[in-house]
C-alpha cells in the first residue's frame, strides 16, 4: 500500500508538525497525505509493528503482510516519518486489547501541546462481552483476542497460546466471527461451530461468506443465542444456547430474535470465541482538558463535520469515529481528516489552547 500515493517525495519541508495516533489504515492514509503536503509527521502506535488490524487481526490470505509493510517502510525511509511503536497514547487510565504489547505510554495532552495538530485514529480495540454466566473462564476469548494472539505469534511477538484448540465455538455473525472460525480451521481445529442468533440472511458478514465457511467445513448454527458457559475448575467445557425465532424488526431494522422457552441445548468446546462486536477505543479516558466531553457513550469520538474536535487542534478519523467499518471507509476518513488538518494549518486558524 503506497500510503503516499499522491507524491514521489516530500515537497519543501513545512515547519508544521503533526502527531498521528494509531497506525492502522486511517492513520497511515492520513500520514501519506500529510507528508505529500510537506508536513513533518510522527506516528504513535501501541503495538510493536504498524498496520493496526491489517497487521494484527485480518487473516493473511486477505491482506499479505508485505503489502502493508512496504507502505510503512516507504513512509519511514523515504518520507522521514518517525514511528513510535509499542507506545500507547492515552489521557487518563484505560486498558484495551493488545495493550500488553505496549512498552511505554505517552500523554495525549502533551502531544496536543507539542504538535501543531494531533490526528486520532485508534480504532476499535475493545470487544463487547457476552455478559453471561461463566464468560470469565480463561478459554472464553474475544475474536480480536484470538486473532491478535495468532498474528503476534506469527510475527515473533510471543504467545500463540490460543492455537491448537480442537473444538471451537464462535459466537457472532460478522466478519470477525468469519475470520475467527476460518483461522480456527486453518490452525487445525477438527470441529468449528459458528453460532448466530438470527438467520444467514441477517448475518452482517453476508450470506456468501457464511456459505463459504460452511463449504470449508464449519458447522453453521443459526437462531441460537448464548445463555451460559459451562465451566469446570475455571475452564470452559462448552456453552449453552437457547433457540430463537424471528420477530418484528427492531431499532436496527432487522427482525428481533425472540427466545423459545425450554429450547436450551449445549455445544461442547475447548475454546469459546465471542465475536459480537468491537467498540471504539479513543485515547481519552477522563475529563482530559475538555476533550472528555467529545467522547460519546458508545466510545466514539464526536468530531465535527471536518473531523475536528471543535475548538481544538485535535482531529479524528476511522473506526474510532464511525465504529467498526471496512478498510476503505477508514482510508476515506484518514484522507479527509488529513485534508482538514492541512486546511487548518495552512490557514493558521488553529484555536490557541
Amino acid at each position, binding site marked *: *500500500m503506497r500510503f503516499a500515493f499522491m507524491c*514521489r517525495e516530500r515537497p519543501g519541508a513545512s515547519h508544521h508538525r503533526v502527531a498521528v495516533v494509531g497506525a492502522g489504515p486511517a492513520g497511515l492514509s492520513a500520514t501519506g497525505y500529510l507528508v505529500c503536503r510537506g508536513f513533518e509527521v510522527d506516528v504513535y502506535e501501541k503495538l510493536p509493528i504498524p498496520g493496526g488490524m491489517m497487521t494484527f487481526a485480518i487473516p493473511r490470505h486477505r491482506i499479505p503482510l508485505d503489502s502493508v509493510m512496504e507502505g510503512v517502510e516507504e513512509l519511514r525511509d523515504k518520507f522521514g516519518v518517525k514511528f513510535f511503536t509499542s507506545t500507547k497514547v492515552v489521557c487518563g487510565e484505560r486498558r484495551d486489547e493488545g495493550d500488553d504489547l505496549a512498552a511505554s505510554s505517552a500523554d495525549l495532552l502533551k502531544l496536543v501541546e507539542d504538535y501543531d495538530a494531533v490526528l486520532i485514529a485508534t480504532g476499535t480495540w475493545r470487544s463487547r462481552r457476552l455478559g453471561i454466566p461463566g464468560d470469565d473462564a480463561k478459554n472464553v476469548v474475544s475474536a480480536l483476542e484470538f486473532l491478535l494472539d495468532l498474528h503476534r505469534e506469527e510475527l515473533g511477538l510471543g504467545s500463540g497460546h490460543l492455537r491448537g484448540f480442537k473444538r471451537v465455538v464462535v459466537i457472532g455473525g460478522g466478519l470477525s466471527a468469519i475470520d475467527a472460525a476460518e483461522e480456527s480451521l486453518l490452525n487445525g481445529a477438527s470441529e468449528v461451530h459458528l453460532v448466530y442468533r438470527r438467520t444467514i440472511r441477517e448475518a452482517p458478514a453476508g450470506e456468501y*461468506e457464511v456459505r463459504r465457511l460452511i463449504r470449508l467445513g464449519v458447522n453453521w448454527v443459526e437462531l441460537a443465542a448464548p445463555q451460559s458457559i459451562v465451566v469446570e475448575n475455571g475452564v470452559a467445557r462448552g456453552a449453552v444456547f437457547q433457540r430463537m425465532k424471528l420477530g418484528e424488526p427492531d431499532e436496527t431494522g432487522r427482525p428481533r430474535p425472540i427466545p423459545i422457552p425450554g429450547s436450551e441445548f449445549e455445544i461442547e468446546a475447548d475454546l469459546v470465541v465471542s465475536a459480537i462486536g468491537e467498540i471504539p477505543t479513543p485515547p481519552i479516558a477522563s475529563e482530559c482538558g475538555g476533550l472528555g466531553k467529545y467522547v460519546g457513550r458508545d466510545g466514539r469520538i464526536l468530531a465535527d463535520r471536518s473531523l475536528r474536535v471543535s475548538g481544538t487542534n485535535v482531529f479524528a478519523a476511522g473506526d474510532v469515529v464511525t465504529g467498526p467499518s471496512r478498510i476503505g471507509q477508514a482510508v476515506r476518513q484518514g*484522507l479527509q481528516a488529513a485534508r482538514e488538518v492541512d486546511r487548518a494549518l495552512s490557514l493558521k486558524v488553529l484555536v490557541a489552547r
Partner: protein
Amino acid sequence: MPDLGTLLRVIDYSKCMGCETCEVVCEFLHEQGPYIRLYELWGGVKRPISCFHCSKAPCIEACPTGAMRRDSQGAVYVELSRCIGCMACLYACPFGIPELSEVTKTSVKCDLCRSLRSGGLTPACVAMCPSRAIVLGPPRAVGDEVKRRALARVVQLGESG
C-alpha cells in the same frame, strides 16, 4: 507524458476482498468520480469494476467528436474540451463504463490517473489496494503475474515442498 509503453490493468477477483479502498481513493482524487466502483453481486459480496482500456476500444470508434482518445501508455481517456456529452461511448461500451457528469456535461471515466502518471506515479487504486488485487504493468508482465497466481491456487505445495 513519458512513453513508458502500454499499460494493462487487471483486477484479480480471487484476491479482492471488497474493502472499497480503490473506490475511496479514486473518489478522493477525482471530483467527478469514483471511476472504479463496487457493486453488490449477491449475499453481501461487493466487487469493483472499472474501464478495461480495451485495445480495440469501441468507445473511441463511436465517439463523433474525437473526444475519446488513447494516451501514449494506452489509457483511454476523455478530452473534455471536445466532448459533447452525447454518450455514444456508453452505447458502444460492452461494460457500461462511461458516465455522464452533470457538472462538466461530458462523458467521464477512468484515465488510469493521468495526472499521477505524468508525475511518474502509479494509479491510486493500484497503489493503495491492500490485497494487491489490482495488477498493473506491461501486458506481458501482468499476464505472467496473473498466471503465476492461478498456478499457485491450482498447485498447492505443502510446507515440506
